[in-house]
Every structure is written in C-alpha cells, then in structure tokens.
C-alpha cells in the first residue's frame, strides 16, 4: 500500500467526521477521487457509520445522572472550602490558559534565550563529532520513532494533552482499586472505616489542590497505594492485636 494511502486511511475517520479542514481535507478528498481502493474503504466506513446512526438510542442507567450530580456537588464543596486566594489563583490560571499562554510562552522563551546555551548540532554525522572525546564512550544510536497509539496525532497537540491523559489513567486505576475497597470495607470495623474514609478525603483534597500535573500524579499514586494496601493488608492489624482492628 502506498504511503499516501496509509496516510489517507489514518485520516479517514477524522475526514468523515468533518474534522479535516483546509489543505488536509483537500488532500484526502483528492486522493479518494483518484484511488479506488481507498474510496472503497471510505464507502465501507461511511456505510458503517450510517448503520450505527440508525441504531435505537441507548438510555443511560437511571443512576448515572445522580452519580454525576453527586460528583459535581462534591467538587463544588471542595472548591468552596478552598481559600479565596487559591480560587482566585485558579481562575487566573484558567484565564492564562485561555488567553495569555502563547504570549507568556513567547516571552519566557525570549528570556530563556538569554541564558540558554546555543545548541550547535550536526545531522547524521556519526564520524564528525568534533573531538567528541568527552563522551565518546556513550553508545547511543539514534532510534527511529516507535509507533504508539498516538502515532498520528499532532505532536504539539498530543503533548498538550499528555498531562490530562496520564491523570485520567491514574484516575481509572484508582477507581478500580476503590471498587475493591468498597467490597472489602463491608468487613471492616466502624473505626477502620472512619479512618479509611477520612484519609481518602485527605488524599482526594491533595489531588484537587495539586499545584501542577506532577503533583496531581503524585497524589493519585498515593491514593492508589493507600487503598491498595488498606485492602490487601486489612487483616494484618488483626494479627497484631489478635482482635478487631
């Protein structure tokens, strides 16, 4: 399959969704006119989408909205407890993200340029690295990029979404272990349950108040480990005391 065909088929889903604008859309459109194989794939894909659209709508479970509302209320409650200066800071952060980031980044880059080292480089010059003696022992061949799930996504867009994606994966892992805790806690004493719940609130608050993505990930990891060890070891205290913890 030609490279262009591969590229077009990767873009096909976005094209059919009307997400490709400008030259990118034109490229796919033009190719589909000229390439019968890709046109067939496109027709199949479009037919599948049409078929899916004809399926009856699936009603969400009745408890879904209740859960969403409860989570929103909990988030509001946490937000309300934050000091006003933190809320102000968060709002300023949002405004920064929306409006000022390009300017600020440009300014920061300009400032950094004063202090950054001019990074002279060479391309594909394995035998022409200046004297190279300082790190000649570092054997590090240039690797070709490794294909990933985000292979075709634009690199800057993907980097911008990276923190949210990783945070989301930690949140999913936390939800899994919390589900196990829900089962286990039925066997715990009231004291242990209360202690567990209180600690969980602390950990969730730490995540909500995390100043940056790294702190958020750290918060998720703490929560996952706490819940995991609480469930896996809830009987060790029994062994220590010989009774109910």
């Amino acid at each position, binding site marked *: 399959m030609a490279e262009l065909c591969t590229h077009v088929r990767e873009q096909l889903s976005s094209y059919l969704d009307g997400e490709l604008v400008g030259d990118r859309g034109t490229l796919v459109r033009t190719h589909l006119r000229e390439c019968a194989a890709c046109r067939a794939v496109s027709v199949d894909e479009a037919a599948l989408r049409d078929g899916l659209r004809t399926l009856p709508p699936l009603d969400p479970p009745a408890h879904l909205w209740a859960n969403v509302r409860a989570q929103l209320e909990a988030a509001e409650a946490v937000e309300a407890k934050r000091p006003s200066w933190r809320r102000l800071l968060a709002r300023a952060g949002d405004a920064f993200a929306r409006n000022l980031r390009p300017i600020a980044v440009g300014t920061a880059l300009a400032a950094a340029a004063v202090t950054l*080292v001019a990074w002279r480089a*060479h391309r*594909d010059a394995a035998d022409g690295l200046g004297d190279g003696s*300082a790190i000649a022992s570092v054997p590090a061949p*240039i690797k070709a990029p490794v294909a990933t799930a985000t292979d075709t996504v634009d690199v800057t867009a993907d980097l911008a979404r*990276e923190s949210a994606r990783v945070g989301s994966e930690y949140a999913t892992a936390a939800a*899994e272990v919390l589900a196990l805790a829900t089962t286990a806690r039925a066997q715990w004493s009231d004291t242990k349950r209360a202690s567990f719940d209180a600690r969980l609130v602390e950990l969730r608050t730490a995540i909500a108040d995390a100043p940056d993505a790294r702190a958020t990930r750290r918060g998720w990891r703490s929560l996952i*480990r706490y819940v995991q060890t609480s469930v896996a070891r809830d009987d060790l205290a029994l062994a220590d005391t010989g009774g109910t913890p």
Partner: protein
Amino acid sequence: MKSLVVLTMMCGVAGADPVGSGSNAGVNERARLEVQPPGKAIKQLAIDNPLGDVRVEGYDGTALQIETHKHAPDAESLNRLRISLIPNTDGTVRIMTTADGGPEYSSLARGAVRIDVVVRAPRNVRIDAAASSGALEMMNMDAGGELDTASGAITVHNVAGTLSTHTLSGAMTLAQVFGMVDAQAVTSDLQLDTITGDRLVASVSHGKIAGRRVRSRQIELTTTDGTIVLEAEVALNGKLVISSISGDLDVKVHRHGPALVRAKATKVDLGSLAATPSANGWMSVAVAGDGQPAAIDLQSRTGFVRFAFVQ
C-alpha cells in the same frame, strides 16, 4: 544570576556540519555539549523529555556531558524539535524537550519525531527525570533520584541514595540499588535484583513483582492481582510485609536470627515449619534465636501463600 551567566559561558559545544541522511528514514541530528560549572557543583539534574528516551550514566568527573539525538521525517520538522538547557543558581540543571507548534505550523505526527537524551553526569548529582512513552535508564549514580514515565520502561542499575520510580505501564527493573527505594507501577511488571537499604516499598496494581537478593531492613511489597516472587534476607528486627489482594505469594527468606512468621491466604504452605492456626485465620510460627526477631507478614486475600526459610 552572576553564577548563572558564568556557568552558561563555560558551556562547551562540540559540533559538525550537516551531512546526508543516516540509516533511519528521515533526518537525524546529534548534538553534544559539555556543561562545566565554574565554581558551584551541580547538585541536581532535572530532565523532562516527553519525546523519547533518557539515559543518565554516572562518571568520575565534574561536568555534565550531554548528547542529544533528534529524529524527524524532514529537515523542517527537525527544526521544530527543541531542546533547552537551563542552569539554575541553586545547582540544578534542567533539560527540557518540546516541539514547536501552533496555527502557523503544519501538523506533525507525534510518532514521526523523536528526541533521545544521553547524559554522563558526576556520580553525586541527584537525577529527576520524566518521560512519556520513552525509556528512562539510570546507572552508576550515588545520589538517587526520581524517575517517572507514563508507558516507558524504567531501568536502574548500580545506584545509591534514595530512589523513587513510577510508571503507568512501562516495565521496571531495579538492580544493585543501595538506599531507600519506592517503586510503583500500575500495569507492568517490576523486577528487583540486589536491593540493599533501610527500606524498600514497592507496589504494582496489575503486574508481577519478582525480587531476588533483596536485603532491605524493611520490605513492603504489594500487588492488586499480580504474583509476588521474592527471595530476600531479613535482618535482626527487620520487617517483611508481602501482600496482595488476589495474587499468589512465593517467598523465600534467609534469616540471621529469630523470626515471627505470620501468613493468611486461601491456602498457606509454610513448608517444614510447624505453624499454629489462630481463630482469626492466621497461621503463625516463631523461630527461636538470639536477638530481636524479624517480623514476616504474608497475606493474600484470595490467592495462595508459599513460604520457606532457605540456607
């Protein structure tokens, strides 16, 4: 600020002219740089490379020797890949990578570009490295560090100091680590080999923990559903807590004195030890000897436990 400028001025650059393409499709670029602090030693190296691998290797010198490898489909894309080196006055040197983007640029597939960073650093520099799907590798360092990836592998070899490693789904291998260790993974396996120090805490959600020659005074290993296979040495008054929600545990321990072993699981095999069952479901056995006993707790809520002392 003065020292910052001096430090920057002291940076040496080794370079050469561009030549034709290499073996990989696309364009490659290598750069080498040596950062020599004029007076103040480098205390910490922070590397944030979401675009590829990071390898840090300790050596007996005072300068940072940095090698970067870029790869892109064409020269224009290659020029959008940025590497920043920012020395701070507090002794921290920061290396960051990114790619230029925005409305004025054409789309550049993430899978088509790459930056790998290789650093030789003085052994006493603490390392703080983060990557995304790239691998993190650290070896021959004496001041520990923190390594954090999303899906990249983490490999640590011959490192002393406090070490903290985290990954969502990259395989993790820690070998010859001398110091406190905190390792955590969500969906990957963790391999431990020759770990010595005051404390080793490691947890994996969905994956296996395999450890051998583990000699930390306090060892805590936990999984959600993965197996734990451990060959460890417990010190006098040492503590070993191995637990899983549903994974099996297979633990062999070298002991140097008395020990109290307690285990609970759906099936417990303590080998030749004559264990006493208690009302709460725990099997326990005390092994006599001189000194403070080591405490060994093993638990799997729905898995098996197998334990033995070895000579």
